[in-house]
């Protein structure tokens, strides 16, 4: 009698910056390649059609013990996730994630940013974190800390001019990531300052 294929164990979701990775302990069988199949159901399915599970977009048959479910989790509701092992014609029982996952629990890291100057222009380029991210950028002339300016930058990955700088005066910038879909934002990044060389004009 063929031993039943063990089900994957220790399911967990690691979610950072709206990238959700379902992970589990691999099923190890000597000289065999075990595959896995991942399925999900949103709160709607669990409430209205609980028998329905939907094959994950990227992992209906996958080799590694992890699956990027970011394209499956498309609403801000709890999602059930399950995995089973596949070996040839054999399939294991399903293992279900203990706690449903909601994308509003994702970890939002400080946004990477590069502050530079182009001629007299103060320029920022933010990390491209994907279409769900916007950024609140705050910038000020160092001696005028009370006079902060802010600007919403709709997407990362492109240099954005903030202001025309006076020579000889340092300007500082900090930024935070905004994810409207879950109504949350990251903490502010460390401030970075740049300066255009030259004689500083007297402050009016």
């Amino acid at each position, binding site marked *: 009698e063929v031993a039943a294929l063990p089900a994957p164990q220790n399911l967990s979701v690691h979610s950072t910056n709206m990238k959700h990775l379902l992970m589990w302990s691999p099923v190890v069988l000597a000289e065999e390649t075990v595959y896995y199949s991942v399925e999900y*159901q*949103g*709160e*709607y*399915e669990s*409430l*209205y*059609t609980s028998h329905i599970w*939907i*094959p994950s*977009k990227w992992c*209906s048959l996958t080799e590694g013990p992890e699956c990027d479910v970011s394209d*499956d989790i*498309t*609403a*801000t*509701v709890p999602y059930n996730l399950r995995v089973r092992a596949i070996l040839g014609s054999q399939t294991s029982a399903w293992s279900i994630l203990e706690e449903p996952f909601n994308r509003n629990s994702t970890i939002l890291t400080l946004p990477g940013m590069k502050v530079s100057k182009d001629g007299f222009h103060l320029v920022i380029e933010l990390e491209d974190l994907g279409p769900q991210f916007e950024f609140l950028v705050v910038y000020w002339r160092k001696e005028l800390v009370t006079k902060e300016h802010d600007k919403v930058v709709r997407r990362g990955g492109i240099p954005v001019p903030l202001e025309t700088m006076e020579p000889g005066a340092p300007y500082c910038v900090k930024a935070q990531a905004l994810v*409207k*879909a879950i*109504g949350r934002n990251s903490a502010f990044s460390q401030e970075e300052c740049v300066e255009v060389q030259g004689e500083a004009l007297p402050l009016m």
Partner: protein
Amino acid sequence: LKILHLGSCVIVTNLQEIQSEFSEIRDSVQASDKNIDFRILRNTGSLQDTEPSDRCCLLRHLLRLYLDRVFKNYQTSDYHTLRKLSSLANSFLTMKKDLQLCHAYMTCHCGEEATEKYRQILSHFEQLEPQAAAVKVLGELDILLRWMDEAE
């Protein structure tokens, strides 16, 4: 994100995301609706032509119609369509929960206008066999989304 002002009930929804998800299956869903002489969501019952104070109730009824009798009755073996339906259904569920909050705070009053308009929509819906009605109303989701977009 879109802020929907439904009388004194205000909810935030990602209408553009929902629109984008539906646009991926719209043509195939509408193509499976063979009865193009008949329409369930008619301009006479539109959200934006409803008294603001009644809009929350009408929308709540419409969302429940989709959740209870449309998404679950639309049969497909195509996984892409299934995923899009799941995404739409869970977004509708999020909106329904927000409207439920308004209902709890007494800002989702069902007046005569909302009740009558929904009664008409339901009577159109029930003139068709459940599966055909689900296909038609799912195909008319772009009409509902435009109503919501214009219900400023």
